[in-house]
């Protein structure tokens, strides 16, 4: 197999524009999905049975079905609902494939993120919480000063791999016409004969994004661990 330079020169700019879309979607997924997932984790641990049950139901639903179905429900399914078509703001949002893809990524990662933080919040030693209560902290102070920082530190390494999953899940946007990396790659694969080259190039883009992501989380982890070291 000879390296087809012309093909690469043609594919690179297209894949690069695709990479921008991938990064945008992944940034929304992590930026919105992380706080929402944290909130959902707290909801699932709430003493109120109904609220906790609702949270568990949401997480079970989104973790038990493929994201492709979720995406198609949002993009093709909701477009049939009269209320959505007739409300200008809703219709402006749901007729846009990019918005729907972003929403699907956020809804999906929220479920998985809640699972990560639920485990981390439950792993906090009871003594630490009792100590905080004993010095007279209110529930809100306990949450912001003790539980969240501790849970965050525990969860960070696991969350890093969820962030990579988010990057990969954005590829589903290509099935509703959004041309991110995988969408561009598919178009190029069907137009040219350099299927392996296109795959290799597209993989390279993903690997660079993933490595950047892992690097960012490694820096965060080190900063988080600063207080732990003597």
């Amino acid at each position, binding site marked *: 197999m000879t390296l087809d330079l012309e093909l690469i020169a043609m594919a690179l700019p297209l894949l690069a524009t695709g990479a921008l879309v991938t990064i945008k979607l992944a940034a929304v997924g992590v930026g919105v999905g992380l706080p929402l997932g944290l909130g959902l984790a707290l909801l699932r641990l709430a003493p109120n049975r109904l609220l906790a049950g609702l949270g568990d139901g949401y997480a*079970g*639903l989104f973790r*038990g*079905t*493929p*994201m*492709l*179905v*979720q995406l*198609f*429900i949002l993009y*093709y*399914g*909701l*477009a*049939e*609902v009269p209320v959505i078509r007739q409300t200008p703001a809703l219709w402006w949002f749901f007729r846009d494939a990019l918005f729907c893809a972003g929403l699907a990524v956020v809804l999906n990662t929220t479920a998985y993120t809640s699972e990560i933080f639920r485990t981390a919040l439950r792993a906090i030693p009871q003594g630490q919480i009792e100590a905080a209560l004993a010095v007279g902290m209110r529930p809100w102070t306990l949450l912001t000063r003790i539980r969240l920082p501790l849970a965050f530190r525990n969860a960070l390494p696991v969350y890093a791999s969820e962030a*990579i999953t988010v990057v*990969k*899940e*954005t*590829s*589903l946007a*290509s*099935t509703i016409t959004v041309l991110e*990396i*995988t969408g561009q*790659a*598919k178009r190029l*694969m*069907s137009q040219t004969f350099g*299927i*392996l080259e296109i*795959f290799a190039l*597209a*993989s390279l883009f*993903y*690997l660079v994004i*993933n490595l950047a992501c892992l690097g960012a989380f490694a820096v965060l982890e080190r900063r988080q661990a600063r207080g732990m070291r003597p």
Partner: protein
Amino acid sequence: MSTDLLTLLTDQGWALALAKGCALTIAAALGGTALGGVMGFPMAVLRWRAVPVLSQAVAVYSGLVRGVPGLLVIYLIFFGGVQAVETLLHLGGNSAILGFVMAVIAIGLISCAYSVEVFRAALQAIPRGQVEAALAVGMSDLVAFRRIIAPLALRHALGGLNNVWQMTVKDTSLVSVVGLQELMRVAAIAAGVTRSALVFYILAAALYLAITLISQALFLRAEKALNLSFGGRS
């Protein structure tokens, strides 16, 4: 609304189509997971034993596939592999079987990359003492592997394999974009024909949920059964 749904499902025959789609989804997921497990276990042993060259090759394969979206892998297999599989298996242009074989290969390749990591972790979790004890009583490497290492590793791996299975079931939906008539594809066709996308995609979601929940329950049972002989840590 409910009578409409009934008409769609029974009179127009979509219930049967969805059931067939479910069967194909389960078959593709089983095939993919089996392929992934059968290839993944020896690969994990290569990694565990740190066999030079082969171990690195497995690491690159597993890292690459786990680092890129499943959809991209599926496009590679479908655009690049149809010709190869057709000449290899002499299917004589039987596109239904070809599609299924391609799907199982694509899903299996993805599933395998994750299985390798699960098996590797399971092998590493075996206490050194157990392996040494087996060798000390005079078992040969092969016997020790067959009687001690492999059973222990499989038991350790079951939880992780459950995760891989769940992921693989959901990954089968991706194959719909290249035409295999599994659950997602049937739902998409039904959505197009009947112009009731919402109904059919929600039905598909419910069916996927049923598949994952039922198989989850089966896995928990298997885990309990396997742990019985280990003092019943259930």
